[in-house]
């Protein structure tokens, strides 16, 4: 079976590029095919790239606190473009100010993201979860 393909990028008007580069190298090291769109990526650009590359998952980063506004309607837009079952991950400094980690996770899960990560997450764990989620999605598709 070929290695899973993931689309990576920093959403909205966010120009933080260092973390984005680290994620690219990290996931490549974990045998993912990484399509990195870099910084200042719009929702439709993530979706375009995922369609064209036949991606298994989209990983959205946000560091500047406006993640909630930028991610509104992401799942709905995926459904509209025929990516009903694509795996959506989001991570970073997702909201402004202090907010309970659990509340943030709930908020983004309700928006249709499969998993939500705060800055203290362990990347090794993310990679393991991602492989598991992609495997499960493929099993559903073929069954």
């Amino acid at each position, binding site marked *: 079976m070929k290695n899973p393909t993931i689309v990576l990028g920093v959403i909205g008007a966010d120009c933080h590029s260092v973390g984005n580069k680290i994620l690219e190298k990290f996931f490549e090291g974990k045998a993912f095919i990484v399509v990195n769109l870099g910084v200042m990526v719009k929702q439709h650009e993530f979706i375009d790239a995922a*369609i*064209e*590359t*036949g991606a298994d998952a989209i990983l959205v980063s946000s560091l500047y606190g406006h993640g909630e506004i930028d991610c509104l309607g992401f799942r709905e837009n995926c459904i509209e473009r025929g990516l009903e079952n694509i795996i959506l991950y989001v991570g970073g400094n997702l909201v402004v100010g202090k907010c309970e980690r659990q509340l943030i996770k709930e908020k983004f899960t309700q928006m249709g993201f499969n998993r939500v990560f705060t800055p203290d997450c362990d990347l090794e764990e993310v990679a393991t979860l991602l492989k598991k989620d992609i495997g499960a999605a493929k099993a559903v598709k073929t069954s």
Partner: protein
Amino acid sequence: MKNIISIDIGSTYTKGALFSLVENTLSLEKSASVPTTPDNLLSCFDEVLERLSAKKKHELFFSSSAKGGLKIAAIGLVPELTLSAAKEAAISAGARVSELYSYKLCENDISALSKNPPDIILLSGGTDGGSETYNLHNAAMLAKADIKTPVIYAGNRCISSEIERILSGTELYIVENVLPGLEMTSPEPTREKIREVFLSKITAGKGLDKIVEKTSAEPWPTPYSMLEYLKEIYEFRPDFGDFCLVDMGGATTDVYSCGGVSSSSSTVIQKGLPEPQVKRSVEGDMGMRKSASAVFENMNAEISESLKQANLPVSLFEKYLRKIDGDSSYLPQTENEHVFEKILAEACFSGSMKRHAGTEEEIYTPQGKFMLRKGKDLRETGKLIGTGGYLAKMKSFSPLDCMKATEKKSSLIPLAPDYYVDEKYLFPLLANISFKYPEAAVNKGIEVLSKAKQQVLKCH
């Protein structure tokens, strides 16, 4: 000394010139131009040859854009990605893209293709290892339709053999993907195949086979030949620098740019597919005759403003449009008609240039101001060349004051280039010669350009 004849069969006129070649230097001996005879291209070709006193021993080169040129329908997946890459590849091969289809082909698309078949269908979609389902669906739709048109497949290479199986009843050519990955385009293999198919299959349908039979010279699609020529000028004469060329005809306006490829920096974010160093764009709704009404529609605000400044009523301009629409060889007679012609040319020029160049937008972020850039940045381009009927004749035409940039999304057009005119309309002819004598053709091309009075862009 060698005698060289180069002929270009255009949609309206067939032009030719006789050159002598001595020690790698070309000299123009004679030129000729006759109306193109679409029903029998050999007849206009022969007449030009005759006028250039073809009895003399000579070497012959020719190109053609007659009978609608080379018509390609491009099929891709996402409009901004593979479809855009396929369109660019077709245009750089000298084609006119007659239809664009994204995502899945439907029954209506297939019946439109069968009713009005293009010369070639270019099927792309998916990066290598990427999407498969759309291409398989589209190939099956084409197979079902029983279309006689040759198909070039330039999509996801992982399913090439399946595509081959589905389209086994079709004349199919498989080449490298036009977009192997999102970070790189690969137009060359597609371009080369388009040219091959043009030569082996399409020349006969366009009536060029009789010329090939008689002269044993092979035709080039005019814009293909032009693009290769400009690449050579850019490569062999670095002293000439970055430049743009605008070829304004009756039906279309072609823009070529050499240079202006920009990349992301600490304050500029570059978006979209990577741009080629030498790029062609063609605007099917920008032209001085057949497309004149479309120009008025597209550039209504600019044209109305120019008419107001010239104190001329719109109704009179519309009347003129109807006149030239019915008679494509009409030349302006009165003073007003000359002004109309100038206003129309300015609109074509600035409209086509703005579509060709990239754009830049200011974005304010919590990290400060950034520029979001798309396409080519031609602001520093030093030279602008005008060619084609109107631009070749009107040396006094100054395109620079019509190219005002809009405020919000700034157009990255040349800011203060020197304007040059190809007065004798020799560029398409030299382009044909450059395949065999690149150095001589490049030097002659730069020599024949005459510099118009320099203008500084008024407003930006």
